[in-house]
């Protein structure tokens, strides 16, 4: 099987759209609420998850035939936790500013259900290369939703993008007020729901059959 066979490319591409981890698989919602109040942490979190999912997928895929079935979840968890800890240690040593930025999110990566979901659903049954692509694809698919949600939350919640004011002062002078709800976690749920609604309305094959 060639490296970029149709099957492999599908593992990479479908998570970006038709098999998106957040909107279709409904994984990783919790962290999507936590880190999307601003664009910057959303992007950092998206990229970190991408790297960790890809690495964890490869490792679990390599080990998949040796892992005892009854403790496979624990093995996956240990691999993910060890990876996250090591990456965070390296960041602290070589990119301290980034590690300060990530602070709480590093811990959140371990609990991100996308990781366990992909390890269990894909890496346990596929080769390392396909698993790697699947990890990258799912990470980016997750990052994409995070960025969309964070864009709306930051714009409507604080009138900024990447911390820079984009809604001009005269709007505020004429009575425009930032929407405080947008900065609260429920706003992320509402936006994610709107994205899911839009996606399912456009792609009717995603809808369940009516009884």
């Amino acid at each position, binding site marked *: 099987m060639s490296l970029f066979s149709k099957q492999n490319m599908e593992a990479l591409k479908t998570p970006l759209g038709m098999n998106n981890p957040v909107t279709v698989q409904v994984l990783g919602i919790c962290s999507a609420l936590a*880190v999307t*109040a*601003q664009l910057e*942490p959303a992007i950092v979190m998206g990229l970190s998850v991408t790297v960790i999912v890809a690495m964890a997928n490869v490792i679990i895929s390599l080990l998949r*035939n*040796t*892992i*005892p*079935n*009854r*403790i496979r979840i*624990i*093995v996956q968890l*240990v691999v993910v936790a*060890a990876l996250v*800890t*090591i990456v965070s*240690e*390296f960041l*602290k*040593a*070589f990119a*301290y500013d980034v590690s*300060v930025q990530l*602070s*709480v999110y590093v811990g959140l990566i371990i609990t991100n259900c996308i990781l366990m979901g992909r390890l269990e659903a894909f890496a346990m049954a596929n080769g390392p290369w396909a698993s790697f692509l699947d990890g990258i694809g799912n990470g980016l698919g997750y990052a994409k939703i995070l960025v969309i949600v964070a864009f709306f*939350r*930051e714009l409507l*919640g*604080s009138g900024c993008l990447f911390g820079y004011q984009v809604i001009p002062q005269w709007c505020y002078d004429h009575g425009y007020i930032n929407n*405080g709800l947008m*900065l609260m976690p429920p706003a992320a749920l509402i936006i994610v729901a709107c994205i899911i609604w839009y996606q399912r309305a456009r792609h009717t094959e995603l809808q369940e059959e009516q009884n």
Partner: protein
Amino acid sequence: MNTNKNSYTFIYASVMVIIVAFLLAFVSSLLKPMQEKNIELDKKKQVLAALNIFEKDAEAAYAKYVKADQLLDAQGNVAAETGGFAVANAAVGEQLPLYVCEVEGETKYVVPLYGAGLWGPIWGYVALNADKQTIYGTYFAHASETPGLGAEITNRDKFQVPFIGKKAVDGEGNVVISVVKFGKVKDETVEVDGISGGTITSNGVDAMLKNSLGFYKPFLTKGACAAKACEAAQCAADSACVESVPAAKIEVVNQ
């Protein structure tokens, strides 16, 4: 090979745990020196940020502006000329570190702060002018406050700059600076706007300032011009005081 056997499961788990433990311990001890250096450098940057200094080479800037990292005793006297830097902010109160700095020929005192936000610890530094009352600059940081709300205490222009020039401590050493609800500032000289939507973190900053600066009361009142027992020796060092001291006494000091 039967991977479902109990013995296999036990051996697999044990070996995995030992390997991972060794790996983590190895990585941790390998990187420790570099991490500690980074943490030290970061602390220096924070002290400099309170002095409104953002030079690229923090190491050199720190050496240039910070003249001493003293340790004070409970009476506000200098107990040690160095060693203040090694004290973690969390331990302020048990020990009293004080950074004596010189910016453009003027003495500034930087006091470390430590308190509680909504989700975790918050900390910072406040730089006071030579009068030990007005604020020259502030720096605040947090471990895990909500982005866009409480975490805005790190926003320099929005939250930290408004502190500059306000009165932190009155002549009796009472902490007068307060963080109030956003838009409710009544007395411009001692009140700063909090963050709307980040009330608990804002209150945390308020409590942190009152608490941490409170530890320094003996030091802050020492040589304060409002106090009647203002000794000539202390006043002479403080140019604002000189006028209030009888001329004869100044001569004595000058000898």
